[in-house]
């Protein structure tokens, strides 16, 4: 029985914080739009990725590399080169969403382990097994739309390892199929690697409150006492039929600490923490909590209980400052 803790890193200090505080694997991305956290100044160039791999391997930990946007026809070389660089840096696996890239990777680097990204949007075992048969995918990250009962059912019908999201900001959960930001900015996570390109975002303090705008479109207006969220279209408040409210979803953070025993029991291989865009402090604090929780559940699954101090720490870091079990907990069928 094992359950890998997979933590995010947008920089070397964040990677070191993850490794030093108990991550089994750290996932990173290259600079540029080959991954879904394409923010200015974030991520790793090739020398930094090599240093990340050396640091993690020297401590018996793994590095995974997210290459989970969809190559564009005019710049296919960029994605292909990212696969080459990943192999050169010696990462333990690459996390892919695009089938063409999978074919290139498995033909060119048969030894390189492939994971199916959540952006691949595979929610059933037939889709996952397809990727396994054709490209040798060894692990799949499930989109956050399945209930735990559905995950359990899926696990029974696939040889592919399953990784579940455990903690972090939630979105509308049509991962790999979300074009919402294209509507306002012409760029979407699949093509440009970001939900809200920073160049299109403006924050402005006005008399009515703090306003966030995306390409001029008002997303939200926060009163002085209200918590702010990331400036994405899905989390905005809009006027619908004379009423202003979260018309798509309310900002919330997934927190599945209480599900660890169930995940262990059903044979989940890894738990993923969201947040490559966050600072090393976030990575350090989240990793420490999840390491303690997983260790506690492994020692004694029967008597496992969520420590209120863990919840307090995670709630403080969460976007929207409220947490949910998301789709995992869905008693109705």
């Amino acid at each position, binding site marked *: 029985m094992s359950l890998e803790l997979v933590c995010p890193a947008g920089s070397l200090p964040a990677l070191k914080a993850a490794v030093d505080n108990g991550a089994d694997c750290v996932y990173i991305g290259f600079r540029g739009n080959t991954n879904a956290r394409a923010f200015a100044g974030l991520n790793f160039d090739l020398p930094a990725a090599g240093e990340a791999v050396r640091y993690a391997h020297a401590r018996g930990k793994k590095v995974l590399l997210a290459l989970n946007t969809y190559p564009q026809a005019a710049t296919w070389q960029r994605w292909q080169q990212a696969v080459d660089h990943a192999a050169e840096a010696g990462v333990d696996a690459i996390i892919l969403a695009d089938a063409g890239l999978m074919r290139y990777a498995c033909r060119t680097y048969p030894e390189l382990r492939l994971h199916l990204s959540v952006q691949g949007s595979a929610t059933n075992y037939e889709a996952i097994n397809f990727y396994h048969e054709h490209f040798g995918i060894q692990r799949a990250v499930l989109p956050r739309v399945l209930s735990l009962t559905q995950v359990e059912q899926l696990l029974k019908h696939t040889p592919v390892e399953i990784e579940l999201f455990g903690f972090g900001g939630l979105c509308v959960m049509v991962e790999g199929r979300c074009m919402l930001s294209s509507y306002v900015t012409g760029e979407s996570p699949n093509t440009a690697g970001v939900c809200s390109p920073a160049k299109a975002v403006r924050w402005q303090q006005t008399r009515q409150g703090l306003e966030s705008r995306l390409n001029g479109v008002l997303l939200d207006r926060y009163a*002085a006492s209200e918590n702010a969220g990331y400036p994405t279209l899905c989390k905005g408040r809009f006027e619908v039929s004379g009423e202003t409210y979260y018309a798509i979803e309310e900002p919330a953070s997934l927190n599945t600490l209480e599900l660890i025993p169930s995940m262990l029991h059903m044979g989940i291989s890894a738990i993923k923490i969201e947040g490559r865009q966050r600072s090393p402090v976030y990575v350090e604090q989240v990793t420490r909590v999840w390491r303690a929780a997983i260790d506690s559940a492994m020692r004694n699954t029967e008597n496992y209980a969520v420590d209120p101090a863990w919840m307090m720490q995670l709630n403080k870091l969460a976007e929207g400052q409220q947490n949910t079990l998301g789709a995992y907990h869905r008693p109705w069928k």
Partner: protein
Amino acid sequence: MEQFTFPKSIAGVVLLLPSFPPSWVFAKVLDLTLGRITGSLAPLHGKHIAIHVRDLGLYLYFTVDAGKFTPIHSVSVPDLSVSATLQDFYLLATRKEDPDTLFFSRRLMVDGDTELGLVAKNTLDALELPKFTPAMLAPKNVMAHMRSHLFKR
């Protein structure tokens, strides 16, 4: 950690003082701590940046180029403006608090060009230690740094 803010009366007095002398000192401090990374802040080069220490009523204005940080006189609309209390700036500088966390809870405010803010945040996050410590600002360390600069020239 308990949140600390200076009494409002202090901000009232500080607001009446000119901003250039503290901006000059602050630019020197930035040179001392971050002078080696000005090159990687390219998108910020030539931009007007304001730091607002909210509870002190203190505004600091500077710009940066490939070689150094330079104090500037106050500008009405900076390209990037960052505000927080002195304690929260300290927690950020010493990597004890996560900027997004402070942002969600409205303790950290960023106005202006969001991309510039991200460049600054991510570049600082990617810095390898040594961390900033108050000891770096001890007079003898500041003098040593200035001496080394003079010597180079």
